């Protein structure tokens, strides 16, 4: 049994969002007679209203009956997820047959990241200095940032780095040395 959309509007179940020109949220009984016994007094009140939920469900006070602790927790989790969702980036190493992927969110800073890269690809990174980049090794860790530029890992603060890093590349040899010599 289908009811037209117009009928549904007329029965005013108030599943619309608050702020729309319909008054009051569903929990107020003064405005909210249940359509079945209100409108259908002449008919067989047992037949169901066709359920066509409006595209955006309203927030009925206290519905669904989920503990407020759980709701607050969900909001917290969502917030921290958007702040701290896993940041997976590809890592390539010159000469290696295949790439790897790591989650930058897991590490607390550069030393940890570099240690992991060393373990992963079995090589050694030199010591970092702002002036000279990585000395003492043939390898330089670099990354592609949001602008598409290739940058030396370690120049910017960690938080800024993980937000702007799109992929990592461990450069080898002369190409690497060229990068470290150029100031940014």
């Amino acid at each position, binding site marked *: 049994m289908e009811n037209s959309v117009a009928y549904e509007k007329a029965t005013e179940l108030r599943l619309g969002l608050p702020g729309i020109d319909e008054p009051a949220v*569903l929990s107020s009984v003064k405005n909210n*007679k249940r359509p079945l016994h209100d409108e259908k007094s002449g008919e067989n009140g047992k037949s169901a209203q066709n359920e066509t939920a409006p595209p955006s469900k309203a927030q009925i006070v*206290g519905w669904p*009956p989920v503990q407020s*602790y759980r709701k607050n927790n969900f909001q917290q989790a969502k917030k921290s997820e958007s702040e701290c969702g896993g940041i997976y980036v590809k890592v390539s190493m010159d000469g290696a047959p295949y790439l790897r992927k790591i989650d930058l969110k*897991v590490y607390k800073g550069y030393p940890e990241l570099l240690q992991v890269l060393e*373990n*992963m690809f079995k090589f050694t990174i030199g010591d970092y200095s702002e002036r000279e980049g990585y000395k003492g090794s043939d390898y330089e860790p670099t990354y592609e940032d949001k602008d598409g530029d290739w940058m030396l890992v370690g120049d910017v603060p960690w938080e800024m780095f993980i937000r702007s890093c799109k992929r990592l590349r461990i450069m080898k040899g002369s190409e690497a040395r060229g990068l470290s010599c150029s100031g940014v």
Partner: protein
Amino acid sequence: MNYFPDEVLEHVFDFITSHKDRNSVSLVCKSWYKIERCSRQRVFIGNCYSISPERLIARFPGLKSLTLKGKPHFADFNLVPHDWGGFVYPWIKALAKSRIGLEELRLKRMVVSDESLELLSKSFVNFKSLVLVSCEGFTTDGLAAIAANCRFLRELDLQENEVDDHRGHWLSCFPESCTSLISLNFACLRGEVNLGALERLVSRSPNLKSLRLNRAVPLDTLQKLLMRAPQLVDLGIGSYVHDPFSEVYNKLKIAIQRCKSIRSLSGFLEVAPHCMSAIYPICGNLTFLNLSYAPGLHGNKLMKLIQHCRKLQRLWILDCIGDKGLGVVALTCKELQELRVFPSDPFGAGNAAVTEEGLVLVSAGCPKLNSLLYFCQQMTNAALITVAKNCPNFIRFRLCILDPIKPDPVTNQPLDEGFGAIVQSCKGLKRLSLSGLLTDQVFLYIGMYAEQLEMLSIAFAADSDKGMLYVLNGCKKLRKLEIRDCPFGDAALLEDVGKYETMRSLWMSSCEVTLGGCKSVAEKMPSLNVEIIDECEQMEFNLVDKQKVDKMYLYRTLVGHRKDAPEYVLIL
């Protein structure tokens, strides 16, 4: 009457532990009452306003363990204002003044101030156990007092409380001499904890069986804790985010494998789902798994985890498990007794990922199922009838369809027949929550068949007063009835006011009852407190009797009107 000396009777009563039974014993005769009350150690008070602390103390001088519940259940869903009541301070103050040697305090839905916790911690030398469930009003300062002053503390169990976290070093307040901890649960705390203090505390607690961590405890600390406490039976993991290539992960795998006693696992408040394999070794022994706070775990990773849990008896999960996932549960968890499926989006804005299909699968695969909480997108009568046939042992059946008045989508009929089948089949049903499109008919069935029903929750249902009357007339064992947004009015409310004295409480909000009707109940039944809650203060309490009442909460009491009600609560 008494053929035995008191000591013998007392010894016999020692074997009677359930509250119900001890209450019955005390009613037999005066001497049994006297012996029982002097020997009673554990008291349960389901509504803190039904009795006063002074009378409790007078009757049970040997009290050691007290359980108190405060706000009505619908307070969980923001239907009760925060300062409505349920303050524990007067209880602690009175007990502290008395000679009661309190050892255990369990509170649910109460307002607990730091002042209360401090007074508690200083007043009872042998205090051993504090359990707070869904409470509020305290901060980590209060916890610091408990940690510092309760020298023989065995249990500190905080479940789903809203705690103001001052990030103080409350964990460090446990003195070095405290080695008695058996259970520590601080999963609901949002702030940082002193990890070093936590490690030392666990190291010096050889009896620790239950440990539930909060989100701020990272994986490397977890690994260290597990190495120190391989005897754990119940573990709540905080943060489970790590790099699978790291040393820490390897160490964690080893640590977990040593924990052969873990039977209960929860938490995963932050989770990297690709690293669950470290957990597999303990899954086979789990009887309780709570993943309802782990939205990061879903899909295949979740399925694989569950497939390892063949002995599961209780499963709490999010609806992202989907009907298919519930199918996996049905195939794997043959011992399952309790299932709770929570909505991934608790604001109900999206679609729930489970439907009647998942429930039917579980009912078919898990014949021992007796307790259900199920948030779903839709339900059909046919499914409910099948579930009722498959699982006649339900004690608790709580169904929540996200759209509260949704009919059977296949037949467009109300769900009366489906729920009717449940109450008819499940003769031991004690708790029932309804949802979906429902008419008076379902209440006729409930009144007829739900003979053991103790708690009933109704929302957006029924056509007339008849619905409520069927329930009040039929359900002889009804203790708690909570109703919102139903067309029940004064006629139903006033039909049998004596009934309310046999119940703990009645809640009615957004119904058709009027101020006059409520006044009538209050007049006829002086043993009830009839509270009208009106936050908008539109009523100003001098309006006409035919004004409809927004929220009414009535409960039986031996001590009359409470004195701590806020301005917007009128007690008739």
